[in-house]
């Protein structure tokens, strides 16, 4: 199987099939990250699109320090923040976290999943992205710090606060 790095080289040479293969490999992860950060599926689709276009235009600038997937998530993060800034300026209505569901109306585990989803959406974006990168992507805190461009202590502190809020809602 062609490695991510080789595919990126092909993308840098303008080969669309290589971009499609990277989309197949990472579109889902980028989409879930974008959905986590923006809280909306329509915005997440926009972010995925902009992320892979940024990859198309900037594949030649990949420095090779991180894995391609981590680099891609870094691009997605920037695109998500750009989309949210655009939203805040009134291009579309802002994201509104959903209300906590009524447990009586749902089967228990569905209700609990909905509570986790709502609790995640209520976290500040900078905490949400740390939770996603650690819990879903399984990235060590040093890699998260590098991806986000913040000190390691900040990553641990964001996780601490995020975890406390999630535990409060779920306990």
């Amino acid at each position: 199987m062609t490695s991510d790095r080789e595919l990126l080289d092909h993308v840098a040479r303008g080969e669309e099939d290589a971009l499609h293969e990277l989309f197949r490999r990472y579109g889902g992860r980028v989409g879930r990250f974008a959905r986590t950060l923006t809280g909306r599926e329509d915005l997440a689709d926009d972010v995925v699109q902009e992320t892979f276009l940024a990859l198309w235009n900037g594949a030649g600038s990949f420095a090779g320090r991180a894995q391609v997937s981590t680099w891609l998530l870094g691009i997605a993060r920037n695109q998500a923040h750009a989309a949210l800034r655009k939203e805040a300026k009134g291009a579309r209505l802002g994201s509104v976290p959903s209300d906590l569901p009524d447990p009586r109306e749902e089967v228990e585990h569905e209700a609990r999943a909905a509570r986790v989803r709502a609790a995640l959406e209520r976290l500040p974006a900078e905490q949400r992205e740390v939770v996603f990168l650690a819990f879903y992507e399984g990235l060590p805190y040093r890699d998260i710090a590098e991806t986000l461009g913040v000190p390691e202590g900040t990553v641990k502190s964001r996780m601490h606060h995020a975890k406390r809020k999630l535990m409060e809602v779920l306990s």
Partner: protein
Amino acid sequence: MSSDCELFRQWLPWYAAGALVDPERDQLAAHLATCAACREALARDVVLVGEVRHVLDEFPSPREEVWEAIRARTQHSSLARVDLGSFVLGISLWLVLRGRQLLLRGDLRLLGRRYPLFAEEG
């Protein structure tokens, strides 16, 4: 909770997610072997990680339309493009500017399948 526990608990969420690396992983594992309170805290983190993953797994992958939109925009970024033929047999050629290089890209289409041309040029 001892000051040791305070330090180790910062690492628990990463340990629970399988994202703690050595030497911290080994140090935490040694501490967990002797500290029941931290083991309990770890158990809560493991549950939390599982629940968050479950929720995130349910977020749908991007639809095929998203790829089609990306594709349309990458081709739109070409300087010039020529398409000849039909669904049965066709050829597309386009010029792309990559940095300071002007590249000729193209593909051959046969019964709806696309075969890239010039794939090894750079």
